[in-house]
């Protein structure tokens, strides 16, 4: 567990769907701050929130989130 961290493609999916953070927040029923922190890997969402985000973007959790080797964040 220590050698990996959670990465996400939330921004790519959001751009693909032409949604702003506020739009996605409204679709998922969360605050824009939540979307912003998840996108920037500040906050790891629960399974429930991950599923809600995936549904809002019309994709799967696996497509949205993935494991990356731990190291300095970009």
């Amino acid at each position, binding site marked *: 567990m220590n050698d990996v961290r959670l990465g996400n493609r939330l921004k790519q999916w959001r751009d693909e769907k032409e949604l702003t953070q506020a739009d996605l927040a409204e679709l998922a029923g969360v*605050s824009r*701050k*939540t979307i*912003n922190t998840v996108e920037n890997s500040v906050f790891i*969402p*629960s399974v429930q929130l991950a599923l809600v985000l995936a549904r809002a973007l019309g994709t799967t959790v696996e497509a949205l989130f993935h494991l990356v080797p731990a190291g300095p964040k970009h």
Partner: protein
Amino acid sequence: MSDEHTDHTQSRPALAWDHPVSILITVALMSVFGLLVQFGFAHLPWFQQFEARHGFWTQLLCAWVSIPLIFIFRRRQRLTDQLRFRADLRAGRVMRMSLATRSAVMLIALVMVVSGSLIEHGMLLLMLGGPVLLLFAIEEFNIILRPGNSVLTDPRDELLAFFKARSMQVGYAIAILSMAVLCLVSVFATRYVATLLPVGLTLSLLTPSLFYSRLDRRAGSDE
């Protein structure tokens, strides 16, 4: 899932007093009643002894006795105000006092308490600053437990819970550190413990609030 209650256009401060006339009438009634109580009690021997011994505290006792008046007079108005306040709370229109104001009041009260405990005739400063500091300390503790701008926070808001956990961690660390410092001070200079205790309390409460504010500001930065 969750929502934030920060962007309400019709928000108002939690301590807004919309009816200054109502407050003036209540205060006037309380004063008159307090004077009547004092006048009535003045014939009782135990009260005369108490007045002879304590002087100033007699006025305070009479003021406290007259507090139930608030619950007797203007009951209908008060109940209407309460209902409106509850509706505002549910709708997220009631805002908390800003962190800057809370910090300023707490720091002023702290200075009063610390200087009151250090100078020779500092009882008045202690009497003024002590209750204010304790009141704001309780409120700050309540805000740390229920963070966010809205008074009624959404328990399902994951981000809020995450920020709360982070800021409480900071507060806990500061509290432990403060206690360690106080333990050390108590070994070498016991008389400063009482002076430093409110400093530790203030730091343990304000630091997590400032940390939460920083986290919240960074989370809200533009995409």
